[in-house]
């Protein structure tokens, strides 16, 4: 009896010590997320209490709401171009930085800077200036004798400015790649070069396979980030213009919530997004058996 009680106390102590996390996790994550599930079945405009309407929101979303499908297409396109772009740039830069011996810390810091100021409004505002009709990009194009392009106004190009912005903020992925590169023993390269392998062969035969666990991690994290993209689209284009070309999923969700006062519908959209991202992540993990190489398991 006494020991059981003491054990109870011991657990209590443990819980008490992690309570800051628990309070945050339940108060700010689990409960609100569960609430949105409930709200997605209600008509709720935030100014009045929610009213139960069952599956109506989901029905409209899947059968009637063209904008929902449109925003989904825009977001898929964005994610599946911007994420590979960012990862390729990050890997390329990481390989360059790994070679630098003198002042490596300086380069690492400078290259990481865009990510620190990453999702911030200031960067988006700067982007607007850069790609404006008389902005830096068009000025440079004119020097080169090319005609300027309406980057932000033309539906064909608008989304690309966002993709470029995402690609430019490669810092955190770069650091992770850098760590991964440092973990590859130099012996492998030495042995390979003795055998007469060129640098391209070494990259595809040594570097890439040994980096796959890091790539997996980066792909998953960045994919989730990509689907959640909001700030740049909101600050640079605001309402999905031109012609809905920049109507990202989360932006449309946000419009439903705060412009159309339809919090219930927005909650439903959030859950659809959660399911999509969850499925994709599961798919990637499932596929990882076929392309991720863990050294401990030996060669496949």
């Amino acid at each position: 009896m006494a020991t059981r009680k003491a054990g109870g106390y011991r657990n209590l102590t443990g819980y008490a010590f992690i309570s800051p996390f628990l309070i945050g996790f339940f108060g700010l994550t689990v409960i609100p997320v569960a609430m949105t599930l409930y709200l997605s079945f209600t008509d709720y405009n935030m100014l009045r209490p929610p009213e139960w309407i069952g599956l109506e929101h989901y029905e409209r979303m899947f059968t009637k709401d063209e904008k929902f499908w449109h925003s989904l297409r825009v977001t898929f396109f964005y994610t599946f171009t911007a994420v590979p772009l960012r990862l390729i740039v990050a890997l390329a830069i990481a390989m360059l930085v790994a070679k630098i011996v003198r002042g490596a810390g300086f380069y690492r810091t400078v290259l990481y800077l865009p990510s620190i100021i990453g999702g911030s409004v200031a960067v988006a505002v700067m982007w607007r200036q850069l790609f404006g009709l008389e902005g830096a990009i068009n000025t440079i194009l004119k020097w080169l004798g090319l005609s300027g392009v309406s980057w932000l106004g033309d539906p064909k190009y608008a989304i690309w400015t966002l993709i470029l912005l995402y690609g430019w903020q490669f810092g955190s992925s770069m650091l992770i790649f850098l760590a991964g590169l440092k973990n590859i023993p130099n012996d492998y390269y030495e042995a390979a070069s003795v055998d007469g392998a060129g640098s391209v062969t070494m990259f595809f035969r040594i570097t890439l396979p040994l980096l796959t666990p890091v790539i997996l991690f980066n792909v998953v994290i960045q994919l989730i980030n990509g689907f959640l993209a909001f700030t740049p689209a909101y600050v640079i284009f605001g309402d999905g213009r031109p012609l809905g070309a920049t109507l990202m999923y989360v932006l449309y969700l946000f419009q439903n919530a705060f412009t159309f006062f339809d919090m219930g519908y927005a909650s439903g959209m959030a859950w659809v997004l959660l399911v999509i991202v969850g499925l994709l992540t599961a798919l990637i993990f499932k596929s990882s058996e076929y392309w991720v190489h863990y050294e401990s398991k030996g060669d496949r």
Partner: protein
Amino acid sequence: MKRRRMFTVLLALMLALAAVLSACGGKSDNGGTNAANSNTAGRSENGGGSNAGSGSEGSGGGDAPKPVTLKVLWWGGQTRHDNTLKIIELYQQQNPHVTIEPEFTGFDGYWEKLSAMVAGNNTPDVLQMNFGEYLTQYAKNDVLADLNPFVESGIIDTSKLDAGIMESGVVDGKLLGIPLGMNALTVIYDPELIKQAGAQEPALGWTWDDFKAIARTVHQNLGIYGSPTLEANNILEYYARQNDQKFFSDDGTGVGFDDQIFIDYFNMQVELIKEGVMPSLDVMQQHSALEDQLIVHGKAPFDVRWSNQVVALAKAANRPLKLTVLPGPNTEKGLFLKPAMFFSVAKDSKNAEEAAKFINFFVNSLEVEEIQKGERGVPINAEIREAISKQLDEVQKNMFDYIDLAAANSSPIDTNYPVGSAEVLNLLGTDIEDRILFAEMSPEDGAAKFREQTADILARKR
């Protein structure tokens, strides 16, 4: 042993508590003051009565008023932010017991911010409200306080305020907002550019045909645009009214005008864009900020917008611009005076009375208008309008004169904005209008689509 463990648990809990408290430390301060205030304001004994009628003097009264914190929220550009902060400072000097926490943003983002605040039970005591879809929405959801009691008790003195425009703040018999200024749609033009092109300056009695002719002449002779594209969210309503129709149907279930009106309205622009007289929409989208309009850069002689935006526009353009009415025929049917914006009080404000006093100060003090000089629209207080017009610079004087002209050539505003009109205007302004002007959709298809989707939205939101 047992005791020691108890002690560890307590220690851990205290640590956790400390962490939580420090995390919201900034706020807990406020919470404290507000809670204290609620006691004071709930019982309206702090000299409210003795202030009645001339609240602008503030403090007055016998017993020293207890400290109050008011949160005031508005949207605007930099000029308005600067002005309003000065006005708030002045009010705090005159009413040392009042501390005002200002919050402000541009119009974009304002409604998101406000609805999030309302949802969080954090509605500002005094908030800027807009006529039309927004007032309807907030009225239907019972967010705003009825200000009639404060008018009756004399805290808000309406004796000198324009009665006609005051009506626009009334919903279902409740006074939910005090207009801060009057506005009307106006055509802003650059007389110098029009003269250079050898065209006639527009004047009362001109028509859309005249508008097109001037725009074409300027485009051909000066090689600049003849006009920017027009914003359907504002101009289409005028266009419908010109033709004896309304934007929304009276029963609030759909579009209130014929398809032909919609088609004519857009055909004019499609035609002008094809000719190069109006820029294509991608150019327009690069000039979305007020300070960045074509007319500011001397790239077009015209701009069409609300009269209170003229001050900021002229400041950015830094050369004389003139104002006239929108093109006819039937200008007087189409044109209307609109409250530029309201100040409303949150229904759950714990300091509603102090909030009302602040609003009274805002609309009934010459000093306020001396600071903002019509930037929130032409004052609705006749005495102030009179007094201030002597202190105005040319741009501001033009605006005041224009309101007089518009008042004489307009009809009452339509107040039948249904709930859900925000979504309808978003549909028109960012979707259908863009598709038509980008030539992805014909005006005919646009009209049909707009009618159908508007009915859908309004049915859903009823």
